[in-house]
């Protein structure tokens, strides 16, 4: 299976993340699965004229294309021309290239939240008029229309994340190579379910604090970050805390709130990223699949029942009170 990778208007971080794949390394892994790069802007030997020829060959169907991976959002500015990002050496906008090459690909994969939904490049007033390959934020329809299907019949596959996890990319590509990723394996925002059916909350080490609503009051404290520090791990999709990042890491394990980077429009949460918006002292944006009244009742009950150990550790930067050991039989 061949892959043509284009870096559109993004930071290149999803490629940098991809290089963090381990056991085996990314090159051994993809080679072992029969996946090869026709060209990748950060990794391939060919530069300049050789690349222009290759792109023309793909566009004219002379070279068949299995997977088009697009990393970074598609900028449409200024005034719909896409000239804020011309693919260098070609005199054509990336917008134009992506629209044309997508027609030739068996599968189209949007790598990262920028490519999927617009992402951070569309933050603030969206100065470059950035959109995703097939979405514009939550709206279905981006650089490619909502009804676009690649030659395989699938919509653009959104491997969202900022950055995306290396395994989310390699596993998506390997599933495609083995013919085992169908439309039913994508969620309603076209993300692969194998990681999008989990919540960041799952396996978060702060879960005991969450159970009692024992909250951190400022960054570096160990307590749950939902009540005060803007954490939305209970609503954000991703198996971040199950599989871990860069060895055993995750945002919440490192004391940083989940900002829902796998979702459309995470870049504009309508509040400071590390502050929880509240209404009458109650956090807005509670877990989405639980009746609010039940949540409030449970929260006040569990708060009242918080053991001293958990209450004190929540506002400390390390464990101050260890769990009690059951006395042995004498």
């Amino acid at each position, binding site marked *: 299976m061949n892959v043509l990778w284009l*870096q559109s*208007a993004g*930071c*290149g*971080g*999803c*490629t940098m*993340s991809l*290089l*963090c*794949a*381990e056991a085996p*390394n990314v*090159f*051994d892994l993809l080679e072992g699965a029969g996946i090869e790069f026709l*060209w990748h*802007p*950060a*990794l*391939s*030997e*060919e*530069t*300049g*004229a050789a690349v*222009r020829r290759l792109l023309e060959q793909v566009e004219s169907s002379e070279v068949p294309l299995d997977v088009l991976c697009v990393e970074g959002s598609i*900028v449409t500015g200024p*005034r719909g021309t896409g000239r*804020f*990002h011309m693919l*260098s*050496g*070609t005199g054509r906008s990336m917008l134009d290239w992506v629209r044309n090459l997508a027609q030739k690909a068996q599968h189209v994969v949007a790598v990262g939240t920028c490519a999927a939904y617009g992402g*951070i490049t569309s933050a*603030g*007033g969206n*100065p*470059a008029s*950035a959109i995703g390959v097939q979405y514009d934020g939550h709206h279905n329809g981006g650089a490619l229309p909502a009804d676009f299907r690649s030659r395989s019949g699938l919509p653009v596959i959104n491997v969202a994340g900022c*950055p995306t996890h290396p395994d989310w990319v390699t596993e998506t590509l390997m599933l495609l190579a083995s013919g085992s990723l169908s439309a039913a394996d994508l969620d309603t925002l076209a993300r692969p379910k194998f990681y999008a059916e989990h919540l960041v909350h799952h396996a978060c080490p702060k879960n005991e604090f969450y159970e009692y609503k024992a909250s951190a009051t*400022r*960054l*570096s404290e160990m307590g749950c970050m939902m009540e005060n520090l803007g954490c939305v791990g209970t609503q954000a999709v991703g198996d971040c805390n199950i599989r871990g*990042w*860069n*060895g*055993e*890491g*995750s*945002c*919440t*394990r*490192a*004391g*940083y709130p989940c900002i829902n980077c796998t979702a459309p429009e995470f870049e504009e949460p309508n509040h*400071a*990223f*590390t502050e929880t918006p509240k209404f009458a002292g109650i956090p807005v944006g509670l877990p989405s699949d639980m009746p609010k009244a039940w949540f409030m009742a449970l929260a006040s009950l569990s708060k009242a029942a918080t053991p001293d150990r958990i209450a004190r550790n929540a506002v400390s*930067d*390390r464990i101050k009170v260890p769990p009690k050991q059951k006395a042995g039989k004498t």
Partner: protein
Amino acid sequence: MSGRNLLVGPFNRVEGDLEIRLEVVDNKVVAAYANSPLYRGFEPMMLGKVPSDALTITPRICGICSISQSAAAAAALGDAAGSQPAPQGALVAALLHGIENLCDHLTHFNLFFAADFARPAYAERSWHPQALKRFTAMQGSAVRQAVEARAQLLHIVGLLGGKWPHTLAIQPGGVTRAPSARDRIRILSTLTAFRRYLEAELFGAPIEAFVELAGADAISTWSTGDAGLFMEIAADLELEKLGFGPGRYLSYGAYPLPEGRTFGPGVWENGELSPVTTEDIREDLSHAWMLGDENHPFKGQTIPDEDMKDPAYSWCKAPRLAGNAVETGAFARQVVDGHPAALDLAANGSSVLARVAGRLLEIARTQLLLEQWASAITPEAVFMESSSLPEHGQGEGLVEAARGALGHWIQIENGRIAGYQIIAPTTWNFSPRDRRGQPGPVEAALEGAVVGDDEETPLSVQHIVRSFDPCMVCTVH
């Protein structure tokens, strides 16, 4: 006299998008124009937001230097708040930042730069079989070892910062996670494993031996490991005569710790070191598709010219220090810091060889620093101090990314961001011409490069451009 124009792009194995236009006369480049063809608009994006959002948004300017951007944003906010990070927080921030810088140098050498020596054009050279084996893009044994070693080294960032890139642990007051004694010992063991890789593969000798090299000759005759293979290639291709920059080097000084910056700050020219005066920075817009006046970054604006009018040819502004183009990067940093081998190389000018040697030197020196810093972690210490931002104020954050001097300048009014300007290392190195017609450093370095009759994408040009390790996504942001 025969002349032709060449357009080089897509220019790969650099971070982000780059297009180089060349005027070639009698097989030599007589003028070069560097175009950064991507505009995203991070600076206007920040306006009106709460200042702390800069810590989440600006790292996402760049996927390869995100910790650098994060550290610069934290420093700018800290400056505005008039606060200092907890000393141990600064230490962990330095550790995180040092790992990113080291990884970037490793990625550059093995994945971005050395792959060109495996090209068929060099098939007749004595070293080519070895270059083919070690450096072939994606296939070479050095490439795969480097990627693996890098992924393991980044476990330290996973442990302390959650993930890489877009690590958000660094705050004005310190870092978000207090490491334990167990973390400290695990970090040291990861560093020991990385040292083993460096000594077995990259240097083929104890790293101290490389750090202690005192002269240009000692560096360029280094014979072991992939560093030795590079020096053999460099001697054969005379890379010490290729790609001279302006000879003026800028470093803000790397890794601010309570006792000072670990690599010292300064501006170096003709053997003279002077302090960095950031008041003397101006961003010239004469050849950038930007509207408005030349300004200091505290006053600067970012208003793209949607008509992309001539004579502009890039989205990149042209920063100048007291009117001068300056080169920044690992080599500049080591010259400014006064490493004897770097100073000796600088006497000859900032060539392709010097830039790569500066990076190798810094890989070795950074490994030693990381080991010292990890050893100095005190698990019972405070890692985060409170820091509160003013309703009105301004702040300057200066750090050293892998590719050189990175600055953030923030203006705060009524508790919101009223101005945010960023000058990244490659903004300096890959700037277009200014109103006086002075070319940017890479444009100057390309003048005189030899172009073969049948070359469409000249190899000499590729070596020179990649020797700067450009990060184009940071350049315009």
